[in-house]
């Protein structure tokens, strides 16, 4: 598959269809990292294997700002796994980037690994084919998982005091570096509420109440928008189980509104719309 990716990237760059192709390349010390290829001759830097965990859709944020007058808006090619493609759909739904500016090479996915261990979310994943693409590569995998939210349910089952203690312990470890937010394709606000100085919602203190505030608000802001790509948890230097928080919201959104994030590029997300008659637990 790597050869096909390289060939396509080379073709896109040579023909001028895109000015940059975003994929993965070999990094240092046996790691894989995002690659930005501008020259068709560099297309051989691109690789694809099970270490490619990053969600590249996050790099499309820089196309939010409109180009200068008279400038042709840049087009990019991008390599997306199925979960990443759902993040791209969210960006399309929210009109953060125009469909014509992105050439998507979608990849079917067998799951990715971190340090040789399969990521837990991949074992649960039931979507192995990208949901938006201009070209799809790879064969459909036979093994498909099922999302049962077992860990979320387990945490829900704990008595409230224990749940509070669990989250406070996790937030205590947080250093409020915002790596989770920066790695997230759905977090594209120019000025995050957590850093706003006028008014100051969360202040500058790196203490448990402010961190709790930040994480709860970020999880809430991702309601109906989080694709479960786990970029946040992978980026966190302190190993905080953010997916437990984000998937709880995803589960509630699914239960209450029958909605999963990023299934297509046009549906209005549930929190941006309403039904006149609906029974919600309030």
């Amino acid at each position, binding site marked *: 598959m790597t050869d096909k990716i390289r060939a396509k990237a080379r073709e896109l760059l040579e023909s001028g269809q895109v000015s940059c192709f975003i994929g993965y390349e070999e990094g240092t010390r046996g790691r894989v990292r995002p690659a930005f290829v501008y020259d068709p001759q560099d297309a051989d830097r691109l690789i694809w294997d099970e270490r490619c965990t990053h969600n590249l859709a996050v790099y499309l944020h820089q196309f939010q700002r409109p180009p200068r007058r008279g400038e042709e808006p840049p087009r990019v090619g991008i390599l997306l796994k199925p979960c990443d493609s759902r993040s791209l759909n969210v960006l399309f739904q929210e009109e953060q980037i125009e469909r014509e500016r992105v050439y998507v090479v979608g990849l079917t996915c067998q799951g990715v690994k971190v340090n040789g261990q399969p990521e837990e979310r991949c074992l649960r994943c039931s979507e192995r084919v990208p949901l938006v693409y201009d070209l799809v590569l790879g064969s459909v995998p036979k093994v498909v998982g099922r999302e049962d939210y077992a860990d979320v349910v387990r945490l*829900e089952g704990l008595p409230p*005091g224990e749940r509070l203690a669990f989250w406070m312990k996790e937030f205590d470890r947080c250093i409020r570096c915002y790596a989770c937010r920066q790695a997230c394709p759905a977090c594209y606000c120019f000025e995050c509420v957590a850093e706003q100085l006028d008014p100051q919602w969360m202040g500058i203190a790196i203490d448990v109440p402010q961190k709790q505030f930040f994480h709860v608000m970020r999880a809430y802001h991702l309601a109906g928008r989080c694709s479960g790509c786990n970029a946040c948890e992978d980026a966190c230097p302190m190993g905080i189980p953010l997916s437990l928080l984000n998937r*709880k919201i995803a589960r509630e959104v699914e239960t209450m509104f029958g909605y999963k994030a990023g299934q297509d590029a046009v549906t209005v997300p549930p929190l941006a719309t309403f039904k006149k008659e609906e029974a919600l637990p309030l």
Partner: protein
Amino acid sequence: MTTDFEPQIIGFLCRWCSYPGADLAGTSRITYPPFMRVIRVPCSGRVDPLFVLKAFQDGADGVMVLGCHPGDCHYLEGNYHARRRYALMHRLLEYVGVDKDRLLVDWVSAAEGRHFAEVTTEFTAQVRELGPWGGKRIDG
């Protein structure tokens, strides 16, 4: 828990229905506990969950969001959005260990002075029962 502690309750009342409802309770001389501080907003749909969390962070023991009855919103749709938001917020707060009974979302019309007083009285008693909250930290 202690019944003699004075809870700090923040109420977000919408300008068209619940705030006049509260006014009506006052002019009708209906008594209710004095611990709620009112913040008037144009519509319950204006109440960002951020406000609710900030209120808890800054010392509130309970938060109320009162709006027009669904279907009667002055801005037509605001309270439908609020309804969805707070259904989700309740679940999220409960999940991170904040008692969801500390957040009340209800509908009070401009003519329902008595209902407003009832809702406030009940909620205050509930929050008293739950005890002080005010930005609980793990180190006490």
